[in-house]
């Protein structure tokens, strides 16, 4: 089993955290999120992202509004809700603790 395969589940679990981070920076639509992730280990596809965003919206972490695009029909632009920002803060702290733990253990 390669490293890549071993971390499949972890990457999947972290995706929501990363999406929260991307959306917190700016109002974005799905193609922007895909582009931001495409250069990283977390590169993903619409088939994964749309269901995830729907779930996050149901949990009131993000919200969207329809915006006209220059070409084609209007698009959904996502932004963080207050609850989403709170969640991002908590997750970030937790992530920092994990990183610290990983760094310190066995030293």
């Amino acid at each position, binding site marked *: 089993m390669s490293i890549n395969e071993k971390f499949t589940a972890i990457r999947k679990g972290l995706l929501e955290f990363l999406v929260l981070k991307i959306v917190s920076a700016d109002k974005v639509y799905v193609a922007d999120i895909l582009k931001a992730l495409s250069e990283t280990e977390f590169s993903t596809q*619409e088939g994964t992202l749309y269901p995830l965003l*729907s779930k996050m919206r149901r949990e009131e972490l993000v919200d969207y509004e329809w915006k006209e695009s220059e070409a084609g029909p209007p698009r959904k632009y996502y932004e963080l809700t207050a609850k989403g920002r709170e969640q991002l803060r908590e997750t970030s702290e937790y992530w920092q603790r994990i990183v610290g733990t990983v760094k310190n253990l066995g030293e």
Partner: protein
Amino acid sequence: MNKVTTINLNGNAYQLEESGFEALRSYLDSAAQRLEGNPDKDEIIADIECAIADKFRALLGPHKTVVVAAEVATIIAEMGPVQDPSGPAPDAQGAGAPGPGAQGGASAPGGASVPRRLYKIKDGAMIGGVCSGLAAFFGIDVSIVRILFAFLTIVWGFGLLLYILMLFLIPSAVTPAEKAAAFGGGPSTAEEFIRRAKEGYYEGMRTFHDKGAHREWKRRFKSEMRGWKTDFQREVRANRAEWAQNWSRYWAEHPQYHFGASFTVTLLEVFSLVVTLLCFYAVYSLFVHGSVFGAHLPGGIPLWLGIVGVVLLCKLVTSPAKAMRRAYRYGGGYGVGCAAVWDTFLGIGAVILALWFVGHNPAGVHDALHDAAAGLHRALDSIRDGWNKR
């Protein structure tokens, strides 16, 4: 050369190669299956469709209107399998992939209650099978439809146009299922027709087997319909304005009106009518007896050429009358003046004379009308016989 299917994604029509359409359908089907039980299922599917439509739009341009199968496959690969974040990860193919049995699952199998659809039927067709298809659709004899088309063609040339349009617009019944649907069953009211048209247009509706997705499609269809309606109403208003303008101009301009103009026009109209009727009779007798007023077609000239000749001759004879009528109508116009009053008096006189004649010869008029009706019946019978012999 590949067959093309038109689909509706997010309110826009896209043309896909048929195998591409099948691939897309199975992708959306399996997406719907994976999201079963997810409260946001409809919305996610709508988002996915929206994204696919975006990708299609990026591919298409003024010189490229069809998405080929390979492009659909690329786009589906780009989209990636739809994964329910709360559910288990999709297992490597297999269980999720819908079998061919899922195709057309919405339309009842069994065959008895297949909704009737309009198709061209090539079996036993004379030209393109349009008449056969129409006859099957409305459940009437094909000869009647053919005669109707021939009639429309002779009188206005409109039938030919209609036929050519339908030749291109109506799909051919090729598979046994399509042939069955062409004959179908059940009522064929206008409402039913519209419902079927909707079904045909909204092929995508069949992709989903649950109520929610179906509702979503319906909602979009309705909003689109509203758009059409406003367009249509705008057009009607514009037309009405134009008509009003034409009418006011028509009533405003009466350069000159000559005594007897309305009679001339009436006489010309009667003349045209008589010639047209004679033409009909000539075509009829050519068809049934092979001769016109005792004169046989010269050997070597086929029947259809004879009929075309007769119709052309009729048009030739009536054309000057038509031109004169137009000249009167648009040149001089029917004005309101002294001469018009005289015309009106004379017209009323003619009607009184006619009534007087009918009043004094009731038996003769009655017989003539009776004979005309019987003659028409006989003529129709012999046309049908002639057709069946052929």
